């Protein structure tokens, strides 16, 4: 008996579900995917090398521009790396502000993903409503930082901007109503039969595979591994009561549920932070230059990001190395594709929430 004929189908780098370029060579038998080989590097920018020419204080502006979705956390993680090397103690208020902006970033990123997901499986009305809600978070970010995408508020030694107690009260009031609005939309993702038909049981990643393949963020937690870098306690997370959101099925639906639950968790974390933040300084003066090395780790919406900084006492770092969550999630994505139907590939690629802009730093 002849073995089934295998065909290689190129997926990307240009594809309707991919806002940014990534390529997969899909080995298929009929409509079933047997193997997937990834290709990255279409737009690698080499931003890491700019540290050799940019003063370490100024480089935070470059770090924030590595990605347009999680820009604040990129800047924050860079600042943490330098602050740890220089043993700078950041004021408590600045740490709370960092936390609030990080969680606002997470909410808008997860809503962006939900919209892209709805668009991916052809539910255009859901896509538009999700992004309509995301705009409200961007409005809050704009009111507090002046920017909608690039916040410009992270700096070494603290933050550049403060949020007044009146403004914080307004934000909390907005978030109270906002949670109800989001629930109406996310209930569609959770309960609609056509959505579940595309996600439940599709692209299962086991707990063991997710862990050993180095997956991070919602991709990892949807497979039952409770790793969340926020538990390290950076910024003000050590003073916040929360537990990582976990699902156990490991399928596309679980990855969706984790992100939905994290939106509500982020709102609760912001409420907690608003109740604990105290008046005080928002920055300390930075003197001297860094000498040493540190691996700063934070939790971006897509998972753990690493900033490795190495300095020799000059104003220019010897090395900055950024390991982004999408880079860490690529092996998991490649492993969950075999066995799926060709038509499910775009959805499965989306479920790791790929950010190629970060990855091609």
């Amino acid at each position, binding site marked *: 008996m002849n073995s089934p004929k295998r065909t290689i189908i190129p997926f990307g780098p240009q594809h309707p579900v991919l806002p940014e370029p990534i390529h997969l060579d899909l080995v298929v038998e009929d409509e079933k995917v047997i193997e997937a080989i990834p290709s990255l590097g279409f737009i690698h920018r080499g931003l*890491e090398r700019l540290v050799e020419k940019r003063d370490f204080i100024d480089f935070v502006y470059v770090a924030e521009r590595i990605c347009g979705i999680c820009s604040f956390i990129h800047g924050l993680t860079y600042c943490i790396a330098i602050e740890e090397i220089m043993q700078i103690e950041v004021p408590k208020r600045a740490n709370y502000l960092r936390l609030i902006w990080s969680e606002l970033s997470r909410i808008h990123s997860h809503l962006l993903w939900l919209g892209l997901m709805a668009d991916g499986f052809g539910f255009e009305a859901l896509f538009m409503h999700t992004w309509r809600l995301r705009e409200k978070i961007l409005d809050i970010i704009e009111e507090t930082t002046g920017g909608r995408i690039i916040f410009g508020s992270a700096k070494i030694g603290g933050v550049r901007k403060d949020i007044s107690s009146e403004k914080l009260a307004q934000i909390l009031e907005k978030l109270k109503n906002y949670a109800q609005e989001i629930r109406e939309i996310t209930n569609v993702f959770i309960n609609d039969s056509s959505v579940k038909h595309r996600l439940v049981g599709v692209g299962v990643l086991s707990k063991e595979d997710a862990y050993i393949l180095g997956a991070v963020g919602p991709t990892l937690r949807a497979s039952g591994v409770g790793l969340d870098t926020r538990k390290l306690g950076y910024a003000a997370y050590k003073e916040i009561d929360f537990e990582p959101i976990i699902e156990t099925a490991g399928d596309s639906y679980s990855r969706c549920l984790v992100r939905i639950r994290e939106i509500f968790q982020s709102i609760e974390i912001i409420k907690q932070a608003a109740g604990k933040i105290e008046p005080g300084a928002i920055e300390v003066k930075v003197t001297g230059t860094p000498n040493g090395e540190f691996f700063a780790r934070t939790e971006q919406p897509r998972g753990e990001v690493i900033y490795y900084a190495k300095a020799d006492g000059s104003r220019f770092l010897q090395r900055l190395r950024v*390991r982004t969550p999408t880079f860490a999630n690529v092996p998991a994505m490649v492993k969950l594709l075999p066995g799926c139907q060709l038509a499910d590939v775009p959805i499965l690629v989306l479920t790791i929430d790929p950010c190629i802009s970060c990855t091609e730093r």
Partner: protein
Amino acid sequence: MIEEQKVINIEIKDLLSQTRDFFNSGHRLVQIGCTKLPECLEINYSFDKEHHFINLKIKLVDLNVEVPSVSNIYWCAFLYENEIHDLFGVKFKDIALDYKGNFYRTSVKRGFNPQNEQP
């Protein structure tokens, strides 16, 4: 200090056995990264278990020396090793998925070590 970070300097010959030990003890591979210094290239292998971060560091003074790939222990390492090969010119032996210099399509080959300089 947010977390204690242990850095262990090892010889290249001990890399595979040490990595296998981490694998067997349930650590995950967090990242592999390379740094160009005046006297050598440093390669950091970072592992984590329950938020305990450990880093193995090897120094490469001769770019003709092949570094054994850890991708047959941690499959996901193939991404990092191909990246380091393409950006720094480091040679890895037996990568599970070897792109042979085509991982990054950059206009400048070995952009982080453009002249492919010996450290």
